[in-house]
Structure formats: structure tokens, C-alpha cells
């Protein structure tokens, strides 16, 4: 029931959707924030996902503003092409609210987590929706002060009645770049592989950010802690954390004076860094791709796991057992469904790639949340996988030799024939993509095709 042919959705760079009414911030004595939601998969009206009070309204408002800045930012596109997605998505359930979004270039991922203690209210339903972050609402959030209270409704269904009774509500159309969706699925795999390397206190984090050079920074910078002082240096040293496009970190600047501490998480191959700020029961995390011009969308981290098909039975079972924001327990599923652990391992990556799992760095677990987009749309976003399938369909892959896990193959490319060698996990190809990235950005379509063929 979940697996759809991946070519059902026409290829396009953007999709458009609209909210029934815009989100609204209603000021006054008891300020209320009503967030309008949209889901491509679940358009039926139902109860709101969350209704209640924010315990740290000032901090939460600041974090939402910072998130809005992230989704409006772009580090590679011209302003004309960048006037696209301006809205994040929100997941409500299991006593947690998570707002997540991408910069328009898909190279910066940000998430605001409002954890238990950061709110008090009820979760009448749960799920994930796109949420309207319009300019007037963001403007109004600036007015929230420390002593205010703030009521929040997530996925509010009847905003027009409550907020603007006299005005006619115009439907707002939002163009959404599809690479954004792909980035959302890929970044979780980077997060899952990341490890915490530094915890910096209030003062250290401010000292660190003072060292970010002005303007757009082209060179890579390296984070090291010398003695007690963290610094960014342009010189690569052993064990230093590599940060490309360091100017993107300035998105965090407005939040720095408010944060209690900063934790830095790093992907083992330095392919991404995550900067997590803590404010009591609210967290703000910012993940940067390896370089400013490289979005998470093109990284191909999930490709290896997509080679093997996972039985639909497991996927639907997992959908049955899981609730939104709930920790995803692969072992439990393995036991319940009597599936092999290897199968389950692949399942996790595959589910993340399908937009069904997010990753929580603090708890070091995947959590269930289903992206508010059609599954076949999400699955259509792996062009390399599609290209690999095309190569197989056109019978362009020839296995020359196969000795245990050593395989040599020839794959017909455009005008030339590529050589692919597999040796266990190690794979090499003579194509330009592989030559350039040496596997750092996922396997090329030729390697994928060979792996798929021998499977």
C-alpha cells in the first residue's frame, strides 16, 4: 500500500499548495498564535494538533523568528529565484512540538523543538503539516515579551472566524521547491550519523561567533578548542571540525545571547555540522551542509539503502505501531514482525528517505513523523536511483566478473563505457561524479546500477 511506482509524479522543480487561511497572531491581553497547516496527504478537516500555552513564549517566539529567517535565507540563489518557500513544517505529538525547515538553497536545516515543559496543553490529534509563516505573523511575534503569556494552536482549522472576522480571507499560494522535500529526508541520515564533539557555555559560544569573518566566506574554517577558548581558524588541524560556508552560522546570532549552551555535532566525514542551542525546554538546531553551494538535497546519503527493496509488510507494520514524534524502536519492530535485523537496519534508512522519520540528536533516536507530502512524490526525488534503474532497463550493465563480494562490471555511459569495481563496501567507478567526490556524496548511478543488478 505504500510503495508506488516512482515515476508517477511528473518531474518538476516546484509544487504549489495553498492554506485555507493565513496563520494569525492575535495580540492584546492574552496573545494567541494560530498556525494554519497544510498537508498534501491529509486534507480532511479534523481537530487541531495542539492547543495550549507556551511556557517560554519569549524564547519560543525568538526561535520561530530565527527559523523563519532560515527558511527565507538563500546562500546560492539570486533574489528572483529565491522567492519561493517561506514556510516550515510542524510536527505535533508525543508531548513535543517540532518546527523544521530549510533554507531555500537546501543547505541549511533548522529545527525548533518545544519539549515537555516548554508547553502545557493538549494534543487533540497528531501529525505533520506545512505551516504558514506569513510576514504579519512573524512581525507580530516580535512583540512577545518575557512576561507575556502565549496561547498556541497548531493546525488551527477555523482561523478566519477567530482572527479576522471582518476581512475576507484570500487563499495564499505557496510555491515549494521539491529539493526542499528531498533535503528534509536526507538531512535526517546525516544527523543520525553525527556525534557530539563540543559543548560550549554562554561565554564560549559568544567568543566563538566573534571570530566569524565578515561577508561571504569562501574558504573552509575549522573549529578547535584551545585551552578553554573555542576558535574558528582557516588552518586545518588534526581533529578540527570542518565548516564550509561559515557565514551561514550568522543565522544563529540573534539567539546567542539567550542561549544557555551550544552543542556541536559533527558528521564523521565532516559532511555536515549541527549547532544546537539550548534554552531550557526549547531547543534550536541548525545543520549546515558541507559547503554553501551544496544543498543536502544532492548528497545521495540514502541511496545505498534504497537498493534493496524493503517488504511493504514491514513498512505498513511500522506505520501501524508508530505515533507521531514517538521514538522509533527498530528492535521492537524486528521482534514484532519477526524480521531480520539487517532488514530492519535498512528499513530505518529507507523510512527516513521516505520522509517518515526524523532524528533527535539529544536522545540519539529516530522519531516518527510523516512528511506532509505524497509518498510517491518523495520517492521520485532520487534521480540517481531513477537513472540507475534506467541503466538496468536499457540493459547497459554488464558484469565481467564476480568473485564473492568482488565484482567488476562495465556500464555504458554517454559515449564511453565506465568500469565499476565493487569490493565489499568499497566501490569505485571511472565516471566524473565518482572521480570528483570519491564516494563522499553517495554512490554514482553506475555503482547503484551494478549493486542493484547483483542483488
Amino acid at each position, binding site marked *: 500500500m505504500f510503495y508506488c511506482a516512482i515515476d508517477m509524479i511528473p518531474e518538476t522543480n516546484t509544487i504549489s499548495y495553498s492554506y485555507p487561511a493565513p496563520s494569525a497572531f492575535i495580540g492584546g491581553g492574552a496573545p494567541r498564535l494560530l498556525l494554519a497547516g497544510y498537508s498534501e496527504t491529509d486534507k480532511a478537516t479534523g481537530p487541531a494538533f495542539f492547543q495550549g500555552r507556551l511556557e517560554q513564549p*519569549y524564547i519560543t517566539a*525568538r526561535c520561530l523568528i530565527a527559523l*523563519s*529567517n532560515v527558511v*527565507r535565507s538563500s546562500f546560492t540563489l539570486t*533574489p*528572483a529565484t529565491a*522567492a519561493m518557500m517561506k514556510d516550515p513544517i510542524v510536527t505535533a505529538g508525543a508531548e513535543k512540538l517540532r518546527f523544521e525547515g530549510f533554507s531555500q538553497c537546501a543547505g541549511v536545516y533548522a529545527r525548533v523543538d518545544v519539549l515537555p515543559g516548554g508547553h502545557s496543553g493538549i494534543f487533540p490529534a497528531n501529525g505533520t503539516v506545512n505551516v504558514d509563516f506569513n*510576514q*504579519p505573523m*512573524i*512581525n507580530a511575534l*516580535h*512583540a512577545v*515579551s*518575557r*512576561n507575556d503569556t502565549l496561547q498556541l494552536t497548531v493546525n488551527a482549522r477555523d482561523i478566519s472566524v477567530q482572527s479576522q472576522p471582518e476581512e475576507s480571507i*484570500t487563499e495564499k499560494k505557496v510555491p515549494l521547491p521539491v529539493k526542499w522535500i528531498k533535503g528534509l529526508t536526507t538531512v535526517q541520515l546525516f544527523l543520525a550519523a553525527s556525534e557530539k564533539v563540543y559543548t560550549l*557555555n*554562554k*561565554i564560549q559560544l*559568544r*567568543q566563538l561567533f*566573534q*571570530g566569524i*569573518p*565578515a561577508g561571504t*566566506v*569562501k*574558504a573552509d574554517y575549522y573549529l578547535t578548542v*584551545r*585551552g*578553554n*577558548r573555542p*576558535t574558528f*581558524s*582557516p*588552518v586545518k*588541524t*588534526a581533529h578540527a571540525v570542518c565548516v564550509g560556508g561559515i557565514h551561514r552560522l550568522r543565522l544563529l*546570532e*540573534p539567539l546567542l*545571547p*539567550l542561549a544557555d549552551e551550544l552543542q556541536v555535532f559533527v558528521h564523521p566525514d565532516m559532511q555536515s555540522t549541527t549547532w544546537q542551542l539550548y534554552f531550557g525546554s526549547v531547543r534550536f538546531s541548525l545543520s549546515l551542509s558541507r559547503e554553501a553551494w551544496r544543498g543536502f538535497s544532492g548528497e545521495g546519503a540514502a541511496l545505498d539503502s534504497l537498493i534493496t527493496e524493503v517488504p511493504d509488510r514491514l513498512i505498513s507494520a511500522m506505520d501501524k505501531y508508530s505515533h507521531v514524534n514517538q521514538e522509533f524502536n527498530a528492535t521492537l519492530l524486528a521482534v514484532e514482525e519477526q524480521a531480520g535485523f539487517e532488514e530492519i537496519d535498512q528499513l530505518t534508512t529507507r523510512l527516513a528517505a521516505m520522509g517518515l522519520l526524523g532524528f533527535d540528536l539529544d536522545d540519539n533516536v529516530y522519531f516518527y513523523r510523516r512528511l506532509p507530502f505524497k509518498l510517491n512524490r518523495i520517492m521520485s526525488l532520487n534521480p540517481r536511483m531513477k537513472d540507475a534503474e534506467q541503466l538496468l532497463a536499457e540493459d547497459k550493465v554488464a558484469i565481467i566478473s564476480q568473485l564473492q563480494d568482488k565484482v567488476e562490471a562495465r556500464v555504458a*555511459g*554517454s*559515449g*564511453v*563505457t565506465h*568500469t565499476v*569495481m565493487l569490493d565489499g563496501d568499497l566501490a*569505485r*567507478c*571511472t*565516471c*566524473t561524479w*565518482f*572521480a*570528483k567526490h*570519491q564516494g563522499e556524496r553517495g554512490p554514482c548511478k553506475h555503482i547503484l546500477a551494478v549493486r542493484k543488478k547483483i542483488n
Partner: protein
Amino acid sequence: MTHLEELEQLINTEREQDIIPFLQRLTPEERTALKPGLTKLAAHYTEFIEVGQNAWRSRMTAPQAKVLAIATFVCYDRSAFQRTNFHFTLFREHLLDKIISWYMPEWFDAWMQEMAEKETLPGDVDYWQMLDLQARGVLTLTPTLVVSRLPMAINGKHRLYEPARLFEFPITLSEHFWYLFEYPSNIHFSDSWTNSKKTGDLEPNWKGFILQYTGDGTLNRMRVLEACLKAVNRNFNKLQVGWFVDLLTLLKPAKAALEQLQPLLLQALSSPQTKAVNTALGYLKVLATEKAFNHQALLDHLPQVMATDKKNIITTTIQILEKAGKVHPEIKPQACLELCAAFLSKDEDLQAKAAKLILQWADKNDVALSDQLSQYSSSMLASTRTVLQELMKDHTEMEVAAHEEAERLPLIGEHNRIVPEDLIFFASQVFENNVAWHVDLLPAMLLAAQDTMTTETLWQLEPAFQRAATVLKRPSGNMGLLDITLAVFFLNYGKWMADNDAAYTAKLHEAKGGQHWWRIRHEMPELEHWKTSRTEAAVYMPHRKLLILALKKIREKDSLPLLSTPTHEPGWIDPEVLVQRMKQYVSAGLQPDILDLQIAIARCALQDTAAALRLVQQWPVGEYRQLFTFLLDAAALPEGPFTVEAAWMQAGLTKAPLTSYEAFAGFSYSRLPIALLNGAYEWKTGARPYLAYGKYNAEKKDYDRFMSEELVMNITFPEGDILKGSAPMLQEYLNGVGQYMSVSITDVARLLLLTPNHPDVLLARVMQSCQRSSGFYEVNETGIVLNTLKTLHSLDIPLSEMRYLCVALCMLHADKTVKGYAAEYWSSRLPDRISSEKLGQMIGMQQRVAWAPMKRFTDLVSTQTQISRLQNEALETLLTACLSVFTEMPVKDLKKLLEVYAEVLAINNGSIRNTAVIQLLNAWQGSSTVKKAVQQLLKRVVQE
């Protein structure tokens, strides 16, 4: 006559008046059917044609443009019409007026909105036209559309100030006007759009308009004030926020109004634009002593305000706190805690002010404050720490960390060994990854593989050949000339192999694709004769000659290896491997190529040569044995025979560049000034006269020229007959960079690594070209400097005069990355692999004439303090040495340098013993600008 023919005739004969009746006659289907033909007509008429010498215009006349605009608007769909660019004509000529009554496409409204969102709305669409379109029901006037045009609506014809029209439609001022405060617009440019001149008190622009009509009550003054303050927090750009702040200031809100605005003033403190914060603080200062002052809200915003690095903001904040504290003493404990953030700034004055207030307000038993202060103590200046000592007494002073010395690795070892991988995968990589030694390794590997090369392997190299062909035809921006040279080499190799392998040739003939390298083989240059404007620079010759040599060896089936191929990153050769390679030549009784041998010698890692030397001792007696003994044995002197003079000379330059060997005196190279070979050039930093450009002189049709002075670092390159002998020295090539150094950013490292032991010759050329003056760097120059510095850093070699100069200049570079890199170069070589004294002198020799702005250096020094005790001490040595070469004439910003020096001395609790510095300090006492700083320093003088 078909519809299309009729249309064509209309356009041809410019019958503007007939196009509308014609289109009206057509059914919607017929209009759609016209589209393909119309597209061809439009393409024809919009084509640019030459109408005179160097004069071009589009083929269509103005009436034809109008006819085409109307026709395309009516017949095309939205995206096709957008692509035509006829919408500019549509609005410019007001053609819509003629169409709107009988045709309006459904997409019109959405199309306009999209253009407004993307800021691509034609300039001829004005606010009044949009109001009209809305009245006719074809356009929804959204805020985005309004704010895109309203700022200009204040001007009438000829851009003359004409505000009366704004009162024509009530909605303009009652609703649309307020959008200007809520949505991003270009309102900030509107002040300079008018052609009207200021006549009375009021500016003829929006600001003047608002001032006038808030004054007489037409516009709600309070609402404008509020809207201005709200506008600073709406993610508008800096200029737009600045405009609203200026407007607010212009309206001069009185105290009563400010009281009412207090919540918004406090909110403005979280604006990302410092101008807004500063202004809001200015107004809050007025309110600070009021009973109704919301001091709690101020405390809430303090963390963000204190986080700024702007001095005036923090100063005003401190003033407000001082005032507010008198009326609301309860804020003191919290305010003290927040004030600590000022200690992250390196500004002495600021720290002093914050410290003073803390000291005045602090409760000595406040544990929280004491904790907070001690956490900040590492970033406090020494003077601040002294002032606050009392409050931190319960905390032991945080020790500065011990120096973390970078791991010392030998020049060559397992850590940097180059491990060649399979040829077929390596060959694909060489054109993708800018690794310095790839250009050397590919020819070496092809040479080594000549006996085992099969048709099948050649076929597997196909992707790499194809890539090389692309690199040759369309090199990407990040490729240097060496990448292209390598591509030519590789394609030459492929062609040679094909010419000698019938099976391979047959396969190649079957290859498909017009761009396949084999199909364009006839256009391929031969490496030996390849010539472009860039290939002629001598500096590129060594690599090219090596590649030609490799090709020759392959063609002649010569299996002896190249000597110069690096074995260790970034460009070293293991002496043992070099000796083994050379042994093959010695055994075969053959002479190696002299340039190949020179490069091999220049790249030889001379750190641990014992094993290699033992191997050499086993060689038969002869010149090569003597040569390699001389190279590898540090104590050995040259002993003839000397037939391969270039190799001897190279060995001498590699091993001891500053030593002149008597034995070499008769070599032909003695005709050259030695500096051209060992890089020990003379240099001087100071003022030099030059012919500057003045104003343009219309009579002379040229610019006026006059003599002026510029501050330059100038390296003197002596004249010499380079590249004239039969076997030129490698260094002669490296001197040949041309008048304007035309080296690509990506090639710099590869060229420097021809002589990793002693890269000074090229280094000097790089500095002369890219760092002669401290300003005006191009992107390219900064890139070259950074890559040069990176290459130097990757080489663990002792520093020469040129290298000290290079590091010093880089420490004064405008680019923060270069500066930071240079500082790291210095600190990672502490304590004994770099002389802080020598480096300090080098910097001093630039800064005694203020070659670079002093702030670049003082800022850098501030970031380098308190990293380790050892570094603090080295910094003191560096600064002392730097000052010791100054002159008695104080230079600009000397004060700042002296303050930094005083701070470093205070951290180390050091004293001044250097007599030159003491003398200078005494001399500087007379200068009013530095007097105070000098007197502080004189307290640290210890006469010996």
C-alpha cells in the same frame, strides 16, 4: 489570405490601427492557431541587426513593436507572453487601455502578482495605472503590488514632487500608505528619485510629505511614530530600516509621545539593525529616570543589546542603566550580571566603563556575580581584571592553557606517503581534483604501465580521455593552465597508443558521439608545438617539458622512470627512492634529462638521508656518485668532475642556497646575479614616487597626470640573461612570470612545489605581484596569496628572509582568512621553528611607515592573546621586535599598537628592556596622540 498572412501584412505595413479590429474578428481558437506563425514573426522582428558601424538595433519599428505586443498578448498564454518581453511595450505604450474592454486573459491578475513578488514588474506600470486596473476589476491590488509602486507615486511628470495626487483616492492614504511600513519596498531610494529641489523647510519627498501632514493632523502622527518603530523589526534590509529610523528622528517625538511609545522602543532593541537599536536607546535614555520606565523590560532586552560589538550602543546602554539605577535600584544585581558581556569586547574604554559601574553597584557578597565575572575573566583586559579583583577574590584565576604544540612529523613518512591507486580510476580523477602531485603522477604511471598496457585497459581509460577532451575544449573556471597542459599530454598519449594498436583503433572508430575525443583528434594540438597566449610564460615550462619527456619515453619505449615524480605529499621525493631511480640510469650508463634531474634534486627531502647515502656509496665511482653524495651528505663539499653543471648547481641551491661554492665559480650560471637563483632578493618598504591620474582633461582628451607617492613593498629583481644557456636552471624558469604575473590560482601550489626545499624565487615574484601594496587586492590576487601561504604551511621547512617577509605581509593582509592563516602559521611553529623576533621585525619594517592600516595588525594580535602562556610570551617578543624598528616619527594609529603592546606586557607581567624601544618611547612622549599610552609603557621599562 490566411489569418497569418493578414497579420504579417499588418506588421509589415505598420498598420497599428488595424490590429485590434483584426484580432477582435478572430475566435479564441483562431487566435491560438496563430501562435506558431506569430512566434516566427516575433523572432524575425525582434532580431538585432547592424544598422551602421558598431550600431545595432532590433529589426522592428516602434509601430511594429506595438502591433506585435498586442498580438502576442491576445494570442499567447501566460508563460509564452512572459518570454517575449513584449509586456514592456504593453505597459510603456498603454496598450492595455485599448484591449481591456474586449479581451483580458484569465491569467492577468496572477501574472501581475508574480511579477511583483519577483520584482520584475516593468517600470512603466505605475501606481495610478494599477488603481485603474483594479477599478476595472482585472487586478487585485495586493500590498506587494502597492508597495512596489507607491513610493514613486509621490512624484509626477519629470519626477517632480507632486503630492496632491495622493489625496485623489481616499484609499491611498487611509490604507495603501500604511503598507509602506509593513512590507519590504524601495522607499529608502525614493528620496533621491525626485528632480525637485528643496525650497522651504520641507524636503520634496516622502519624509517631507509625512512631516507636513502629520503636523496638520491629516496623517495620524502617533500611528506613524508607532509604525516607524514596528518597521525596524520586520526583516527589512539595512537601508530600509535606516530610512524609517531617519523618519522617526525627523518627527522629533516629544517626551510624552516617547512614554507612550515605550513598549515599542523596547521592542526595537531586538532589531537586527544597529542604527535602530542605537536610536531606540537614545530615546530610552530620555525615559530612564521616569517612574513609569519599564526597567524590567529593559533588563529582558539587555542580553541582546550587550551582545552587539558596537561601542556606542554599549556606552548608551551603560548610561541608561546608570540613570535607571538611581530610580530603580532593584535592577542593579541583574544589570551587573548582564554588563559582564561587555568584557567580550577588546575595547579598553568600554571594559573600563562596564567595570566601573559593576564595581559601583555590586554587592560584594553576590556569589552569582562573582561566578559570572570569573567566567569572563579570561577575556578581560588586564586593567579590567585589576579593577574587579576584589569581586573575584574567591575564585582562583584561571590559568592560561599550556601551549599545544602541533605534532611534529618528519618531512616524509607513512603519514604523507603517496599511494598510487589503479591507473584507470586515478586517470579519471586527475582532471577533477586539484591535488598538486597528480600532474606529476599521471605521466609516471603511464610510463610505468607501458609494458602491461592492453587494448582492454586503454578502453577502460576511455572516460578519462573523454574528460581530458572536455577540459581542453571547455576548461572550467577552477582549472589552471597545468590542468589543460595535462589534458593535452593525455590526449597525445591516447592518440599515440591508438596509432600503435590496431585493435584499439578499430574500437575507437566504432565509438559514437560527435564530441568523442577520437572524432576530434585532428583538432588536438601536439604538446611539443602547442601554443596559446598563456603557454609561453617560462614558469610553466618545467611541467610541460616533463610531460614532453614522458611522451618521448613512451614513444621510444624507454622504460627508465622519471626522476622527479614526488613520493610524498605535498611534493617531496624520498631520497632512497630517488637514489634507486637514479641507479637505473647509472647502471644503464645513460644520462637522465637534466631538467628532470634538477627538479628531482630540488624536491628531495633532505631530512634523513643516511640510508640513501649508503646506497649511493655502492655506486661505481663517477660524477653521479659525487653529485648525490654532495646532495645527501650535509657536510660534503662538491668534488668533480662537473659535467652536469646544472645538477651540481641545483644540489648546491637545494642544500645550502646562501652558500657559494668555489667549485661552481666557473659555471656558466655565474653570469647571473645569484639572487635570481637563490631568491635572496633585496626589498624595501617605503614611499615611492609614481605618476598618478588626475581629472579628465577634455581638451587633451586624456587624463591629467601628476607626481604622487605611494607606500609600497618593493622587491628588486636584478637584471640577468635568464634562459639563455643550453641547460637553464630550474630557477631561471621560475623567474619568468612575465610582466603581469599570469599564474592561475590553482597552479600556484604546483609551481611552488617544484622547489619545496626553497621556494623563494617564485615566492618573491608572487609577493611583488600580489602584495606590493596593502590595498586594492583583486579576488585573484587574494586567492594566489592564500594558496601560496597554504603551500608554505604544508612544508615544514626553516624560514628564510623571503618566507618571513611573506608571513609578515600576510599577517597585514586585508582578507581575514589570509590574516588568520598567517597567524596560525606563526603560532603552530612556536616555540622553536619560527623566530618571533625576526617576524616582528619584518612586520615592523612594514608598519613603521604604516604600509597597511594598523588596525589589521592590532586586531589580529588581540585574537592571539591568552591562547597559551608560551604564545603570550612569543607575542611580547614579536611586538617588542616590531616596535624596535620603528622611527621617532609616530605613525598613524601607533597609539592602538602601543595599547595592545601594553596589554600583552600586562598579561605576561613583562617589562621593556629593549634599548631601541625605550629610546623610541622616550621620543614619542612628545606626541600628544600617543603620550598617554607611552607613559603607561614607560612604567614597565627596566634599564639595564
